[in-house]
């Protein structure tokens, strides 16, 4: 039995040596502590207060109550557009990320000679700087000279004007993002390798086929990893900025079809210097992300299988 140590013990209860140790402890963590207060808690509070003001960084902020929030929800067409773009992208990209991530991990998990080389190749795009990655894709997706449409041409398909037509901007950005799927595949791979081999052996004895093994063993055992990746992916989608900025353009591309939320926030905050308004946008996004994360967390008990749950129930 591990006894539970109270997480907070009053200063007065400590012996002289323990006090010295505590002081040393605070000194050791002080860089982080200072950074936490100055670059995190401070800015978060400031941002909350600023979201109720109108301010373009010079002069003094003017208190306007809920006006920013009211304006955003009632009369801001670009806000609505950016929410629509980001959510549409999330719906297209996230399931594909999970499917391709697991598929690629399964490929990497094969016991074949030279598999390490393939793992390296699959992971490599993840290390390519986002700006360079977006640029090469802009070039490959060029309607006339791009290599993607050339390859499609071999199959007698006339490729669209990818980044030039509103209907295909999000598809293009999904392709760019999926190129880097090796990053999450490595995590799925770790998940796959944690599944005890005996489960599969037992299933073989019982005469299970591959599909059954995948559905009844792999998927449930992998569900905590999937859950973790979905939460991270969701937060990542809402933070998408660089690929959209480079590939769709700083203002969101044709008919603002690539106007991601962060791109819009950047335009409001740093191009037009509307600090109060941008703070309100940041808070709306944060609260939205928190709500969605909690919803995913709540739903997780219906589809995530934890080995430890059973032992806890005894």
């Amino acid at each position, binding site marked *: 039995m591990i006894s539970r140590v109270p997480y907070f013990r009053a200063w007065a209860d400590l012996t002289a040596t323990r006090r010295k140790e505590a002081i040393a402890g605070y000194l050791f963590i002080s860089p982080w502590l200072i950074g936490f207060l100055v670059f995190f808690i401070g800015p978060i509070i400031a941002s909350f207060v600023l979201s109720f003001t109108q301010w373009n960084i010079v002069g003094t902020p003017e208190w306007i109550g809920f006006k920013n929030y009211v304006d955003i929800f009632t009369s801001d067409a670009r806000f609505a557009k950016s929410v629509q773009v980001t959510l549409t992208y999330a719906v297209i990209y996230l399931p594909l990320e999970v499917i391709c991530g697991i598929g690629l991990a399964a490929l990497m998990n094969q016991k074949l000679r030279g598999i390490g080389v393939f793992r390296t190749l699959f992971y490599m795009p993840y290390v390519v700087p986002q700006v360079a990655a977006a640029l090469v894709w802009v070039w490959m997706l060029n309607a006339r000279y791009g*290599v993607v449409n050339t390859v499609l041409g071999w199959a007698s398909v006339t490729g669209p004007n990818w980044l030039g037509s509103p209907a295909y901007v999000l598809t293009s950005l999904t392709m760019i993002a999926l190129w880097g799927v090796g990053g999450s595949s490595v995590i799925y791979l770790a998940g796959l390798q944690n599944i005890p081999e005996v489960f599969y052996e037992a299933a073989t004895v019982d005469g299970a086929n591959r599909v059954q093994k995948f559905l009844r063993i792999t998927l449930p055992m992998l569900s905590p990893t999937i859950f973790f990746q979905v939460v991270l992916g969701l937060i990542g989608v809402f933070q998408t900025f660089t690929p959209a900025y480079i590939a769709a353009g700083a203002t969101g591309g044709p008919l603002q079809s690539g106007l991601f939320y962060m791109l819009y926030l950047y335009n409001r905050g740093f191009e037009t210097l509307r600090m109060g308004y941008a703070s309100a946008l940041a808070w709306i996004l944060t609260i939205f992300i928190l709500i969605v994360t909690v919803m995913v967390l709540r739903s997780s008990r219906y589809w995530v299988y934890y080995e430890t749950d059973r032992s806890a129930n005894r």
Partner: protein
Amino acid sequence: MTTLAKPYEEKRIRPGWQLTERQAKRIEKILGYATLVAVAMLFVLPLYWMLATALKTPEQTFALPPQWIPNPVEWQNFPEVFAEVPFGRFIVNSFILVALNVVGQVFAVSLVAYGFARLRFPGRSVLFLLMLATLMIPYHVTLVPRFILFSKLGWINTYLPLVIPAFMGSSFLIFLVRQYMMSIPYDLDEAAYIDGANWFDVFRHVILPLSRPALVLVVVFTFVEVWNDFLQPLIYLNDPNLFTVSLGLSFFQGTRETNWNLLMAGSLMVTIPPLLLFFFAQRQLIGGISIEGLKG
């Protein structure tokens, strides 16, 4: 004992058309390799296309149908990039920023991780949980007020906003190194204390040397993150002389939209350093990622 056959070793009677186990294994292997090669080609194509375009003349770049192999190879594109934009400057700038960030992170992360891993003080668990919570809060909440803070300090158009936060340590890296330090046996600390060492001695001479693999990870992560970062340099830097490679590349895109051979030559040069680092630190990196996978 030996005469008892296990049930699953019983030979099943196969219809004539069914493959023997060996044949099936062989086909499976071939299929496995075929899929791997096909998928690998998809993943390598963009990098190959970046390289191929970087070695083409303007005529070859816009040839129809596209040329798969540049012929003749145009090495001139690389010096040309340096002539068109101060690309050498951008590279030096990025390396300066990377170096300062690496120093900052290694310094702060090792100290803070040691504090959390080894020393007991009131509120330790609460503070550690708070630190983990900051990982879940999206960075954009603090983007605007941080910008305001730095502009009020007069730090816009300097490297201070891109360097000073590194000396406070990244929560994620602190977490990573703290987990690593927790796995070092406490007996080692105790032996040092018996020899009269103080907390800092133990940190400096016992824990720090043993944490090297984790600190290598800190260096790699910091390098890649700083080198690849785009949003922060975009917000804080206006003077092209201060631009980093990522920012410089985007700036180059804005001015030379159609010179794809030059743009790809620039992109290639920006891609090579993190790629090289990845090859050298591959083992630590992928190991570290599986630690990352556990953080939820």
